[in-house]
C-alpha cells in the first residue's frame, strides 16, 4: 500500500442536486434509489443521503441526491439545491432554505396532517403552493395520487412523481424504464411504468 497524492481540480458547481421531501411511508427512499440508479446507469457519479430510523413513524423524510462527474458529499448545502420534489404540500415549505432563487419545484398536491394540526393546536398551511409560487418562478403542481390511481396502483405515487421529475432531467427514457423494470416485483411493474409515463406527460 503506497502513498498516493493526487491533484484534482473538481469544480463543485458541476455537481447538481435533487432534494426529495415528504412523510415516512410515501416511498421516498425507493424513489431516490431509482433516480440514483438511472444516473449511475447513465454513466454519472452519484451519491444520496437520507436518515432512516425514527423518521419512519410518520415523521419528515428527506433524501438528497447529488450527481455529476465526481461527487464528494452526499448531502447538499443550504441555498444550493437545484430541484425540490415535495411529496406533500406542507413539506414543500420546510426546506425552502435549501434552494436558490432559480431552483425548480414539483409539489404533490396532497395534505397529510402532522400531530399539531390533528390536535387543533396549529393550522395546516393550506395556501402552501401559493406561498411557494411567490418566491419561485418554476413550480409544477401535480396530483400524484390521481395519476397512481389511473395507473392502477395507489402505491405508485412515487413513480408518478419520478415521471414528473424526469421532464426536467436529461436522462434517456429507456434508462428509466430499465431501472423500473429491475427494481419492482413483476406484479407491479406495469402499474409503475404506467404511473411513470403518466407523470412524465403531466
Amino acid at each position, binding site marked *: *500500500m503506497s*502513498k498516493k*497524492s493526487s*491533484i*484534482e481540480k*473538481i*469544480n*463543485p458547481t458541476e455537481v447538481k442536486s435533487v432534494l426529495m421531501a415528504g*412523510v*415516512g411511508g410515501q416511498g421516498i427512499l425507493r424513489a431516490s*434509489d431509482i433516480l*440514483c*440508479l438511472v444516473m*449511475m446507469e447513465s454513466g454519472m457519479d*452519484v*451519491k*444520496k*443521503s*437520507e*436518515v*432512516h*430510523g*425514527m*423518521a*419512519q*413513524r*410518520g*415523521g*419528515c423524510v428527506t433524501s438528497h441526491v447529488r450527481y455529476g462527474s465526481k*461527487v*464528494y*458529499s*452526499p*448531502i*447538499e*448545502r443550504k*441555498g*444550493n439545491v437545484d430541484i425540490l420534489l415535495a411529496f406533500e404540500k*406542507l413539506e414543500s*415549505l*420546510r426546506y425552502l*432554505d435549501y434552494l*436558490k*432563487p432559480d431552483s425548480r419545484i414539483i409539489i404533490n398536491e396532497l395534505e397529510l*396532517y*402532522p*400531530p399539531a*394540526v*390533528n*390536535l*387543533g393546536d*396549529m*393550522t395546516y*398551511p393550506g*395556501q*402552501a403552493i401559493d*406561498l*411557494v409560487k*411567490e418566491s*419561485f418562478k418554476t413550480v409544477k403542481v401535480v396530483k400524484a395520487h390521481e395519476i397512481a390511481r389511473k395507473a392502477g396502483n395507489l402505491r405508485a405515487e412515487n413513480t408518478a412523481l419520478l415521471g414528473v421529475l424526469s421532464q426536467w432531467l436529461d436522462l434517456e427514457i429507456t434508462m428509466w424504464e430499465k431501472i423500473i423494470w429491475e427494481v419492482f416485483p413483476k406484479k407491479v411493474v406495469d402499474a409503475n411504468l404506467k404511473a411513470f409515463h403518466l407523470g412524465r406527460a403531466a
Partner: protein
Amino acid sequence: MKVLMSGNEAIARGAYEWGIRFGVGYPGTPSTEILEEFSKYDGVYAEWAPNEKVALEVGIGAAVAGARAIVTMKHVGVNVAADPLFTVSYTGTNGALVIITADDPSLHSSQNEQDNRNYAKFAKIPMLEPADSQEAKEFIKIAFALSEKFDTPVFLRTTTRVSHSKSVVIIEDPLPGEDKTEIRITPSKYVMVPAMARLRRLEVEKRTQALREYAETFGENRMEINSTEVGVITAGMPYNYTKDVFPEFSYLKLGMVHPLPEKLIREFAAKVKKLYVIEELDPFIEEQIRAMGLVVAGKDVFPFTNEFDPGVVETALKGKKPTTVRLPEVAIPPRPPNLCPGCPHRGLFHVLGKLKTFVAGDIGCYTLSFMKPLEGMHSCICMGASIGMAHGMSKALKEKGKGKVVGVIGDGTFLHSGITPLLNMAYNQGEAVIVICDNRTTAMTGMQEHPGTGYTLQGAKAKELDIFALAKVLGIDSVRVIDPYDIKNTREVMREELARPGSSVVISRRSCVLFKRHQTEIRKPLRVDVNKCVGCRNCIGLGCPPIAWRKFADMPADQVIKNAKKQEGNSFIDADLCTGCTICQQVCKVGAIVEVE
C-alpha cells in the same frame, strides 16, 4: 460490476468478499443493516445476540477458536460491550475480530451523541474510518487484515451519513471462506488473572507502538497536495464535505484515526501555511496534534455538536452567506415521528397517562408516547433502565411511592437488559409495577427477531422464550397478561396491580401493526358519526394519526352539526389510514365512532 450501495451494505459485502463467514451483533440505528445484509450471503453464519455485550463475547469466542468474526453495533452498544472490549484488547484475537461502531452525530435516532473514537484510544484498539461506501467495502478488508497481522481487535467506525448514504461501489468476486478453526489451549494468552494480564498489558503497548509505525506508511492515510496556503487533516465523511466546498485545499485524509501517524502529520503540517483539523464531535484528532506541539485550528471555528455538512464547513471558514431566497412567513407545523395508526402501545399509554403515576420508561417505539397528547412516559435513559429506575424510585419514595411508580419496557429491550434488573427487584422486594410491552418484535429498528419471537436472524425456527414463566421464576409475586386493545381490562388490571403489595409484572401483549407474522384478523376502518359526536376530544387525546380535530369556526356553516351546548368542533377519521383497532371507539362515551360501511 458497479452497484449502488449504502455504507452498511458495502461493509457486509466487503466482509463477504474477504471470506468472512461469521457475524454477530445487536440491532441499533444506524448499524442494523450491516448484519442483516451479511446474513443473506451464501455460506455465512450470522446471529442476533440479545445485547451487545453478548454479541462481542460470541465474536471473541469465534475468534479465539480461529474464526474471523465481524461484530456490529451502534455507538451506545459499545458502552454495553465495554467490559469484554477492554480485556480482549489484552488477549488479542487469534483468528480475527472486527467491531463495527456506528456513531450517530446529530442524534438522528439515539439518546446521546458520544464520539466512539475515544473508545479506540481508551481501549487501545486501532480504528479505521471510511468516508463512503467504496471505502467502507475496502476498509473492512483492511480491518480484518490488520486484526490478523497484529493479533488485535480492530474497530471500524461509521457515522449515520456513511452508513446510510448510498454511492457507487465496484463489487468483486468473493474469496472462499477458509476454515482455520481448531481448539488450541493457551491460558497465558486468554486467562486474564492479574499475573498474566500484567504481561499481556506490555504486549498491548508493543502492539500500539507497532501500529503507530504502520500508520506512517499506511496507504489510506493519504496526502493530496494542492494549494500550500491551507491544509486540512480530516477523516470520514467530513473529508467529503470539505472537498466539496474547498477542492483547492491540500488534504491529509486519515483512513486510520487511531493510532495517529505523527511523522506524517508533521510532514503535512510543514507543507502548508495554515492547518485545520476538520472533525465532527470531539476534538479527538485536534487535541493529539496540539500535543505534538503543532499549531492547528479546529474547534475554535468548528462546532462541537451535531454532524457537519458542506454548508457547516463553508460557514465555519468563510462566514455565513446571506439567504438568497425569500422564505414565506408562515408557521410550519413540525412533523415528529408518532406511534402508527393502530399501534398496540397506544392503548396502554392512554391508560397509564390517566393513572397519575410516574412512568419510568425505556427505549423503543413506545418511547414516542412521551409526546403530546399521550404524555405517558416520564424518563428514558438507556436500554433497560426502566426497571432499575422504577425500583430505585419506589424504594426511595417509600410510602409516598406506593401504587405510584410504573416501569415500562419493550419485549426486545427487556431481553436486552431488563432481566437482571427484574431479578434485582424480586430479590430486594421491590413494589413497582413493571409493564412489558410485548409487541412480538423489535419494532423501532425494523422488526428484528429476538429470543421471544421464535425465529433467528437467518429465519430458522427457534425456542420462543415464555416471558410469563421467566418473570415467575425470577420471583415476581404477581404476573398478568393484558391485551392493550382492551382498554377497560387494561385499566382494571393496572389499578389492581398498583394497589397490590409486592412486585408485579404486567405483560401487555399485542403484535406491532406493521409486523405481518401475527396480523391475521381483518379489521374494518372506523369513522366518526357527526350526528353523535359531542366534541369531547377524548379520541383526539389518543394522538392517532388518522384522527383530526375540525373546528366549527373553520367549517362552512351548513356542515356544522352541534350535539352539545359548548361544542366547538368535531372529530374526523381518515379511513385510508385507520386500521380499525377500536381503541378510539372504546374511549368515545357517546358511541359516535362506528365502522365504515
